[in-house]
């Protein structure tokens, strides 16, 4: 560990961007659960619910990818810029989500209940699902738990 003071404005991060990996994982899992969510929404709100659910899942996944891309690009320039991108990106993404919903609010196929519920459930559900894998491998490679060596798993 270095005791030298490092300026966040001048420091930049090279190498792979973990945000991109995380968001691609989330994207894969989102595509996996899409049929289930669409089926549930179609039970409650019919065809409109199904289409709204697909639209909501697309909003959530694009939001994740956009956030990750913004941070990955700016981290290569400087940490200060990454901070700015995280903060203004939050406002920008909220604005884009608002715009995406505002543009379709009066269309015949929209079901606002299904859209809103799907946005919240998909966002939180995918995050919790991803968190499970991230927390397991956070200490990789030194302390990554092994299924065979675990003392609680000697059956």
């Amino acid at each position: 560990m270095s005791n030298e003071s490092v300026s966040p404005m001048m420091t930049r991060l090279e190498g792979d961007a973990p945000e991109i990996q995380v968001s691609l994982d989330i994207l894969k899992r989102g595509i996996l659960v899409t049929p289930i969510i669409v089926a549930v929404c179609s039970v409650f709100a019919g065809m409109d619910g199904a289409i709204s659910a697909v639209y909501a899942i697309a909003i959530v996944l694009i939001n994740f990818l956009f956030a990750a891309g913004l941070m990955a690009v700016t981290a290569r320039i400087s940490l200060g810029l990454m901070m700015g991108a995280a903060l203004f990106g939050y406002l920008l993404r909220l604005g884009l989500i608002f715009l995406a919903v505002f543009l379709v609010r009066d269309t015949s196929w929209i079901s606002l209940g299904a859209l809103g519920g799907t946005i919240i459930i998909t966002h939180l559900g995918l995050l919790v699902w991803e968190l499970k894998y991230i927390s397991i491998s956070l200490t990789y490679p030194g302390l990554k738990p092994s299924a065979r060596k675990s003392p609680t798993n000697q059956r």
Partner: protein
Amino acid sequence: MEALIHIAAAAVDPADAKKANAAIGAGFAYGLAAIGPGIGIGYVVGKAIEAMARQPEAAGMVRTTMFLGIAFTEALALIGFVVFILLGL
């Protein structure tokens, strides 16, 4: 001014007033719901940048945790947004 008050009184019927109140409430809900996550994201990112500047070799882990922290914090704003679209959009 008095004329405006008369016009407003004439134009407002109870159904419109209810809609207007719902829209105002939804706007407040969305605005207030966005403030908290904004503060939270600022705090998360600020601390993460500090950690990465101090210890660049741990940047990967910090960035992963930061990204998830931002996403969880943003969920609060999305909940506010959903209340907004259900109440008053």
